[in-house]
């Protein structure tokens, strides 16, 4: 009966049935179970524009280099405040249309950074437009492709009021009397990227990260975390350098320089700390800056500010954690007296 060596029918049937059964156990059954999740309370729907942006994200193959998953290991903590959970993908991972399936957003490679929380990390539309037009305008070492076909180069006289103009730094500028304006597609893509923000869980915490080993062994958890947090240069690179640049010179026409800046080098750091905490949009020639009060702790802000005040020829006194704390409290009282 089970003579596979001589009976081709049994052989073929056995391989077929065996494989289908195993496939149901390991793929079909768990997959259909994974569909039964609920969205988080208050989880926003994707708007029409955001969804269009997601489709562009897929058709340009962004997933080849960018993941969207925060794993439950500590090294991923930089990409989000908690590990990703299935509900996070409730609205974004649906079948796109009749022809195309649910997008593979989790990704398998990080040639570029994870984008789970990019909307919170970098909310500036101007930055995203510059970066998509040519990533090297803002991140000199980037190997990301440029997406000029999502933009239009038009005669400067023909720019209409509703057009979104991209202000390029001099070395990347197009021929004189022409202007780069953003097409609808890139605006949708940026809206999608801005929408990528990690929701807080209802119980306020969420899963824990598996800590990295050396902390536990060498100095104990707290000690090491503190010293990591105090590395102002590293924090500056992670948080600030995409706009203000590694050399502190900023990008002409988009992001102001910190080297030699009057605010940065001021003896009294109050204004500087306020800008970091609350954001800044007072100078029309530059893009607006987002607030960082939610993303950075007092100690981290102090470390960054100290780094900025003592680098690139700047020479101002260091900022202490307490200074930041005071100003943060002051702002909080100011807003809710």
């Amino acid at each position: 009966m089970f003579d596979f060596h001589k009976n081709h029918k049994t052989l073929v049937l056995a391989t077929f049935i065996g494989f289908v059964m195993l496939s149901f156990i390991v793929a079909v059954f768990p997959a259909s179970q994974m569909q039964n999740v609920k969205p988080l309370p208050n989880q926003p729907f994707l708007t029409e524009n955001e969804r269009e942006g997601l489709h562009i994200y897929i058709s340009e193959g962004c997933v080849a280099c960018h993941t969207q998953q925060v794993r439950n290991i500590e090294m991923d903590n930089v990409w989000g405040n908690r590990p990703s959970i299935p509900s996070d993908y409730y609205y974004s991972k649906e079948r796109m249309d009749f022809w195309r399936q649910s997008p593979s957003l989790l990704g398998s490679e990080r040639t570029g950074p994870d984008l789970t929380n990019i909307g919170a990390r970098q909310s500036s539309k101007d930055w995203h437009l510059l970066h998509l037009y040519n990533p090297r305008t803002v991140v000199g070492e980037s190997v990301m492709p440029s997406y000029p076909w999502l933009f239009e180069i038009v005669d400067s006289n023909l720019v209409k009021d509703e057009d979104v103009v991209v202000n390029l730094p001099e070395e990347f500028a197009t021929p004189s009397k022409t202007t780069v304006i953003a097409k609808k597609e890139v605006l949708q893509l940026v809206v999608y990227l801005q929408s990528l923000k990690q929701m807080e869980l209802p119980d306020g915490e969420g899963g824990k990260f598996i800590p990295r080993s050396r902390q536990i062994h060498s100095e104990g958890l707290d000690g090491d975390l503190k010293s990591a947090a105090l590395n102002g240069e590293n924090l500056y690179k992670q948080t600030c350098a995409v706009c203000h640049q590694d050399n502190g010179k900023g990008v002409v026409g988009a992001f102001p320089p910190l080297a030699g800046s009057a605010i940065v080098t001021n003896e009294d750091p109050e204004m500087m700390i306020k800008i970091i905490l609350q954001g800044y949009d007072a100078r029309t020639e530059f893009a607006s800056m987002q607030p960082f009060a939610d993303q950075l702790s007092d100690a981290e802000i102090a470390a960054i500010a100290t780094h900025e005040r003592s680098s690139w020829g700047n020479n101002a006194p260091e900022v202490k954690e307490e200074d930041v704390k005071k100003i943060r409290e002051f702002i909080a009282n100011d807003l809710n007296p």
Partner: protein
Amino acid sequence: MVLISELVKNWKYYPNFLMPVIPDFVMVQAPLNSDNWATSPGIIGTLVLIFIVLFVACIIFLVKLNGYIDSLKARQIEKKKLAFNEELMALEESDIDHILDKRKKALKYKLSGTELGGQERVMDEKGLVNRVTHEPENPMFDEKKKTPLSIETPEPLKSIIIYYLGAAVCWLVFGTLVGQYIGMKFIWPEMDNLSWLSFGRLRPVHTNAVFWGWASLAMIGLGYFVIARTTNTIIYSYTLAWRAWILINLTVLLGTISLMSGINNGGGEYREYIWPVMILFAIGLVITFWNFYRTVASRKISDIYVSNWYILAALIWTTVLAIIGYLPFFQNGLGETVIQGYYMHQGVGMWFMTFTLGLVYYYLPSALNKPIYSYSLGVLAFWTQMLFYTMIGTHHFVFSPLPWWLQTTAIVFSAGMFIPVVAGTTNFLMTMKGSWSHISKSYVLPFFLVGVIFYFVGSTQGSFQAFRFTNYVWHFTDFNVAHSHMTMYGIITFILWACFYTILPKLTGKEPPQVLVGAHFWLAFIGLFAYMISLMVGGTYKGLGWIDGNAFLESVILMKPYWVWRAIGGSLMFISHLVFAYNFYYMVRKRKAIITLDVPILERVIN
């Protein structure tokens, strides 16, 4: 998670990331904790043991059942025998004499030995023996043996094989040209600014072209020969073979165009072709399966050779895989991710690996002119391949939000992959044993040897990479890219090349220049090594840098020199493909026809 923290606490004992094996077994020794009872090793071990008992019980039951059915069959045969006896008894005397007479004559008949050759002495008056050389010792490289004989193959089958292989070669050159181009984009991201040539769009073009174009067409083409040869009959339908050829080529062509124009199914690896395109491939597979199956069904020998097991199974499994991969009912949310892990791993394991193993089981013994070492090992590897390979897809999503049990299953079965891999490797190496001296004398065996060694190394390394500790360091880095090239290129492509060089000279009677085969081999081999090593080293540093919490951009800067080396390796590989394409052309090109003698002239000569 407790398991991992346990592992991590043990880190100080394993300061070196190059010791990935031990911590994984440490990890399995979980702490005593009632919260995680279901994942504790004791429970898992017990379940496994119970499973083994059940498994044995099932086997016993099946054996018993088999025995009972056999006894039923035996009774039927007995009945038939009785009926035959009665028939004999009913025969007339004269009829029996007639039959016996015929049989006696047949027994007495003997061959004289000169039926075919005649009795004249052997001479070579017309100078038909070629290859007379005055320089037996070549100073530059070892002279390789010529392919000894040509195999008689029906013309239509010959042209089917050549067309399949020819199309495969074209896709190889195209696909790796694209790969080479996007590899250079890591060094010069501004090489072009055309949407159709951008990295995100070309990457899937590269992977899909070499998967569905190169490897798939080459495997099926080589498979046609194996099926016809090992069933000792002719292929069921040549028309079906041509239809599948058109469908598969159309899939890759349309898929490439649609990806370049920005139509992408969803970005899941190897699932980038939209369903209206991929369905053509699936139909091609079903047609091919039917064609092979009908051929095997009408085989002239009673046993089904193990190659055919692998080949038929690969076609069935991949059809199922394509259907599950594209059905929409369970693919929203993370359901898609589960299917993605399953699909991308099975695409490699159930299609390329299974089919290629089937080819090795024929072409390797054929190239060595001796039988495979152990048939049973081949059968063992076959069933374990199905059991273990199917379960391991989720190891692409370790630490992801997918269920922890699914990740653990994937990791455990990844370790189980040792069984088919070791069985297969042992089998192939033992077949080669005793013929090592042939390696220097043959231009085919080095390709086989590299393929087999990579089969062991690449698969084992893949299993290691699935462990949580190694995943911790390597996941998301360029190490993955190195691994996939080690397997798809080191295993699949090298073995396919070996099969090409085994069979084509026998089909066409024309051997490629040996210097060029050597050039092909060494360029591809050195190129692959440069490619692999640079990305492995770079990937490891990248992962360690992330663990240390360095700024992300630093990992990009860190990779730059390694990307240059990757591009250099890639260039060597690509050049080797051009050489290979020329060799292929050399083997199959139509040579000026020799003026054929028409019948009257021939008769005059004979008279």
